[in-house]
């Protein structure tokens, strides 16, 4: 309740297949009445369903360029991975310059903010004595995953600002200085590789205000490509280490030193988090975890093949200086409030009631066939059992349970059909060797499975 989500369903494109429900890492989707339904409390906007849907019925809703109109001075905040979509077709200065032709007055590279965050992370790790490993807060889909599925790990999320939010702060300050306008007149727009960042940008948060809007990369991809050739030049101020955040391993490389582990792809992230929960990885200092294959270059709203995008990004950054020596002053604390769990999977707010529901859930699951086929509209048999216990589904939603009920019913019908009213002495059809009577029905009862008569023959 009360969550804004970027990921939505386009009803008329949805065919009600089971692809998305089976891939959702938080089991947040059900098919009901032939259409996918997203359970808002559970959705983490990772974009897995956008990737998997063969009908392109899952979409990400963000801001359009018309949102720029509300501000007098507009700053583009390109994600480090943004440039990977155009690298190889133009140099960095012209990729950034193309943004100025779209209505932006200035560009503030998120890669630059990332370098500030990397330095702060290094300091934090130097002084940290708590439970290890710490987990990066940079990918909001991973943070959401932890909140929903790994609540015991929220306290291991590094409580520092993300490059996106810091870039918004720095860009706003710079805009005020450059124009003399009040901060409200400065609009900062993150150019996003993914729905997770769109949602994160909209989430009200304590501490640092994020960007004023988030524009999905896919929405401006065509425009930018068109303008690359004629774009003005806009100098880059970030270094290779900041741009490295756009692909897996880059964040760790820019932090440097220590034992830092990187993992990409949400299902791989789940494996690692599961192991952290069991107490493994305690000798690792920091985990860079990114929901997308290859990192943000593989974001669900990116256009290029992720592996090609990673190659192009690496190639482009090779020509950049390693990093900025004179990093901008962050202008205040980079600390963030600790992340809270999202109890979306809880069976009940009352523990005793929840336990009772769990008992019923386990018992219900034991009666289901265990095929995890998804035909019921829930992602697997256990999820259907859970939906039943929550009162949102019934056991006959399972085609196998239904088939069995129908069979029992059919047998009863046949049995009833065999019964004759006492007033009738003889079978209606009067064929001579038929011995049917009231007692004849008994041959259809009992355990004779397998070749029982079909219901409608």
């Amino acid at each position, binding site marked *: 309740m009360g969550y804004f989500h970027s990921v939505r369903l386009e009803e008329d494109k949805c065919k009600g297949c089971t692809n998305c429900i089976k891939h959702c890492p938080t089991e947040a989707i059900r098919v009901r009445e032939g259409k996918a339904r997203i359970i808002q409390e559970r959705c983490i906007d990772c974009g897995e369903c956008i990737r998997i849907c063969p009908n392109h019925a899952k979409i990400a809703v963000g801001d359009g360029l018309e949102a720029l109109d509300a501000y007098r001075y507009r700053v583009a905040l390109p994600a480090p991975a943004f440039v990977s979509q155009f690298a190889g077709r133009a140099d960095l200065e012209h990729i950034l310059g193309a943004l100025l032709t779209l209505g932006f007055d200035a560009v503030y590279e998120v890669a630059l903010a990332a370098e500030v965050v990397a330095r702060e992370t290094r300091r934090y790790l130097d002084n940290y004595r708590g439970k290890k490993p710490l987990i990066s807060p940079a990918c909001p889909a991973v943070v959401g995953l932890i909140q929903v599925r790994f609540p015991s790990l929220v306290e291991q999320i590094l409580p520092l600002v993300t490059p996106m939010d810091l870039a918004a702060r720095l860009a706003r300050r710079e805009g005020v200085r450059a124009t003399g306008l009040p901060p409200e007149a400065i609009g900062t727009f993150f150019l996003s590789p993914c729905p997770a960042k769109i949602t994160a940008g909209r989430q009200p948060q304590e501490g640092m205000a994020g960007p004023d809007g988030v524009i999905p990369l896919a929405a401006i991809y065509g425009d930018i490509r068109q303008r690359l050739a004629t774009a003005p030049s806009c100098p880059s101020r970030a270094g290779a280490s900041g741009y490295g955040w756009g692909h897996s391993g880059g964040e760790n490389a820019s932090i440097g030193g220590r034992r830092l582990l990187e993992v990409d792809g949400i299902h791989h992230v789940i494996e690692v988090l599961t192991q952290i929960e069991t107490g493994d990885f305690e000798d690792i200092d920091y985990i860079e975890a990114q929901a997308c294959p290859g990192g943000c270059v593989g974001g669900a709203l990116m256009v290029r093949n992720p592996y090609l995008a990673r190659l192009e990004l690496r190639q482009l950054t090779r020509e950049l200086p390693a990093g900025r020596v004179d990093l901008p002053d962050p202008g205040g604390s980079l600390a963030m409030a600790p992340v809270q769990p999202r109890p979306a999977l809880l069976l009940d707010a009352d523990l005793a009631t929840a*336990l009772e529901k769990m008992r019923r859930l386990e018992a219900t699951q034991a009666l289901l066939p265990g095929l995890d086929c998804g035909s019921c509209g829930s992602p697997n048999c256990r999820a259907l059992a859970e939906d039943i216990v929550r009162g949102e589904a019934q056991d006959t939603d399972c085609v196998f349970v239904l088939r069995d009920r129908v069979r029992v019913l059919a047998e009863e019908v046949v049995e009833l059909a065999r019964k004759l009213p006492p007033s009738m002495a003889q079978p209606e059809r009067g064929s001579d060797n038929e011995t049917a009577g009231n007692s004849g029905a008994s041959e259809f009862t009992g355990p004779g499975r397998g070749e029982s008569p079909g219901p409608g023959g």
Partner: protein
Amino acid sequence: MNEARPPLELTIPVRAWDFLAGGDGAARVRQVLQQVGFPPAVIRRVAIATYEAEMNIVIHSQGGELKAQITPAVITIIARDTGPGIPDIDLAMQEGYSTAPREIQEMGFGAGMGLPNIRRCADELAIDSMPGKGTVIKIVIYNR
């Protein structure tokens, strides 16, 4: 007020020497407790103790099962296996004592910390072992 209800009971078979599945039982218990809403600190203790008991079945026994009995007030884990048993329980309880062979130690087990860890996590611990017959470990953790 709900004390009269029977506990939730989970039974999870544990196969000897199955290192791929080893740990799944504890993970399942953890997931159930999380979805029911036990406090994280309680869940952590249960999960660690269950994991150590489970891995001891995997590594040191010929196979067995985990049983979890869960009420709002108390969680009981019973790890039972079919042998070979522990000849000297006091010795086995000592930190650093392990009979794990080298190849197991190379996998990162066999520090002799499992049983001491269980004792740290448990409010009550009872080990019953008969050489040749098997071992039963009963772990009780209160929700408070």
